[in-house]
């Protein structure tokens, strides 16, 4: 089961790559504007100022509770999505996508529903690995050190800018000195948001299981 293999030097993979599939954190402002929040980086919809996240539509500073509440709601949404327990068959000609599970787990119950015939292998659609990755992504958004190293997953609406920068043009965005200053100024506030994600990491089986199987605790 490849899912359980320790990934080699996972930290060497860029956030853009590792969090490719992760859902974005959408924030709603008091003015009703929604925007995808991608941490301290350039966006046309919000600005991170020295005192937090500011909506570009109306200029309001989003309160910590407003941000934390929407962040935690998203985390719980994903946990619940994970626990919906959808499974699917890897045989493309079968196409079974269901929440029923056979007493063999990996055996497909097939189109006939009789648990005979299909040789495909069943697995959870939303894996614990993806859920863990989703949590890591949300935590990374408030990682001010990553922000100053410009290692955050780029926002969708910034893709064009990135392509231009890859082709040698100057990268548009926040200057390094501003990034450094913003990172320090927001360290505590963003730390509180990270603690919201931490609350679930402490629960998360994935974070502990590899250690346990290596050293055989308990």
């Amino acid at each position, binding site marked *: 089961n490849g899912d359980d293999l320790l990934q080699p030097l996972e930290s060497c993979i860029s956030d853009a790559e590792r969090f490719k599939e992760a859902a974005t954190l959408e924030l709603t402002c008091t003015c009703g504007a929604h925007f995808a929040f991608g941490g301290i980086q350039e966006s046309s919809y919000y600005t991170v100022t020295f005192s937090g996240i500011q909506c570009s539509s109306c200029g309001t500073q*989003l309160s910590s*509770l407003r941000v*934390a509440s929407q962040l*935690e709601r998203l985390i719980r949404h994903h946990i619940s999505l994970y626990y919906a*327990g959808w499974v699917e068959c890897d045989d493309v000609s079968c196409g079974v996508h269901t929440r029923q599970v056979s007493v063999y787990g990996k055996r497909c119950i097939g189109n006939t529903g009789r648990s005979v015939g299909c040789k495909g292998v069943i697995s959870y659609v939303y894996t614990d690995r993806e859920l*863990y990755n989703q949590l890591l992504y949300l935590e990374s958004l408030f990682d001010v050190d990553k922000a100053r190293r410009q290692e955050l997953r780029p926002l969708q609406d910034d893709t064009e800018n990135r392509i231009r920068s890859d082709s040698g043009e100057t990268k548009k965005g926040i200057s390094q000195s501003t990034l450094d200053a913003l990172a320090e100024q927001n360290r505590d506030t963003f730390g509180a948001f990270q603690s919201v994600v931490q609350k679930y990491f402490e629960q998360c089986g994935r974070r502990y299981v590899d250690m346990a199987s290596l050293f055989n605790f308990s």
Partner: protein
Amino acid sequence: PKKYQFRTMRQKLLDTADVLDEQIDSMAKTLQKHHKIAESDFGNPCIASQFSVYCCGRIVPDSPFAPVELRLNPDSLFLETSRLGGIGQRISIDVQSLAEYSFFPGQIVGFKGKNPSGERFIVEQVLDIPYLGAPVSNKTELLEYKTNLDGSSMKTTVLSGPYTPSTKIDYSLLESFVQKLNTEIKPHSVIMFGPFLDITHPSIRDGSIESVPELQGKKVATLDNFFRAVITPILKKIDSRIQVILIPSTRDSISSHAAYPQNSFERKSLQLPKNFKCFPNPCSFQLNECLIGVSNLDSFKDIKDVNRGKIGDLNRFDRIADHILQQRRYYPCFPGSLKTRKGPDGTVEHICGADLDMPYMGLSELYDVLPDVLIIPSEMRYFVRVVKNVVVINPGYFLTGNNAGTYVTLSVKPPNPEVDDDDLTCINDDDRLYIHNIWKRARVDIINV
């Protein structure tokens, strides 16, 4: 409790399957023993045979694509066998010759019948599942409870979240209720079910929770801090002589254990005083002699049976309560419920669900005895029923939508083993063991908030 402290978000398909398989085999053993059926009389219902066999399995829909929201019909039923009983295969069942039945997905059943063609198992008889025994106490214990109560009835108030309207966050109704609890109701204990702050509330989704008046001037950065800043002070006003029992919901923002079975809240992190006790969901506990089983997952809504005959004429809640007692599990349906919303573009959005952590569903079993009182809050209309001598209660919600809802007060006449009446049943003269007969001594009032 330790066993509930499992790590969530690590559900393995094979562990899920082990639990599903074991549910069938352990019921098969129970039925064999109870009906004194030889193991050799058990057969595989999926294989063609001219002879009747006994078998045990799980009721499942006839298609992997059947949505859980849909009610099954008599022609869409399959029986799933265990690995041991029929190498996990599923077979169409024919229930036409049964005068009465009630089946739902996830239910474990025992049948006698035959499969002449290999295509369909014709059910001739549904095997009765024996009920667990009633809890008992000895004379010394009972006398002690009687003395503690000093002649008065044991009074417990039961209420269930949501405690705030569905369109805004406002705990003023709870606040005035606490006042009433202290001055008018004055129970010995209160059982409060979550959600206290529902993570699916629209004010959390859009962040407008920030504008709650109680927060003005306070620096509250997270939902956990919100709980301690707004909800804890209200709960703390409950008279310290009242024992308060908190049962979480998987939709409680304060709980990091967002799966059922669910670990208890941490009293200390909620900054609640010692008259508060935090219990897991589900669990059972004793208030004096009275064994109370609680589960905060809506079985009364989620068990959707297909039925026929006399049983179908029964009150639906009686029928479902009976299923829970027979199945010996607080939430016997599988897969668990799912709440979704269809977007304007046709996409289906997940809202919430039963969030079953299948490998740990063993923790949702009733174990060795029936409870005296079974409390499962439900979105369905409040009710109190006596089923198999178990007092079954749905207190209703404290608020339904934006309207004040209901709560329940349970009063139990003190036990008196020295008087020979119907209030207790002595089952063993040597050990002086008594069945509690709570259903005979209890009075349950459903009251508008």
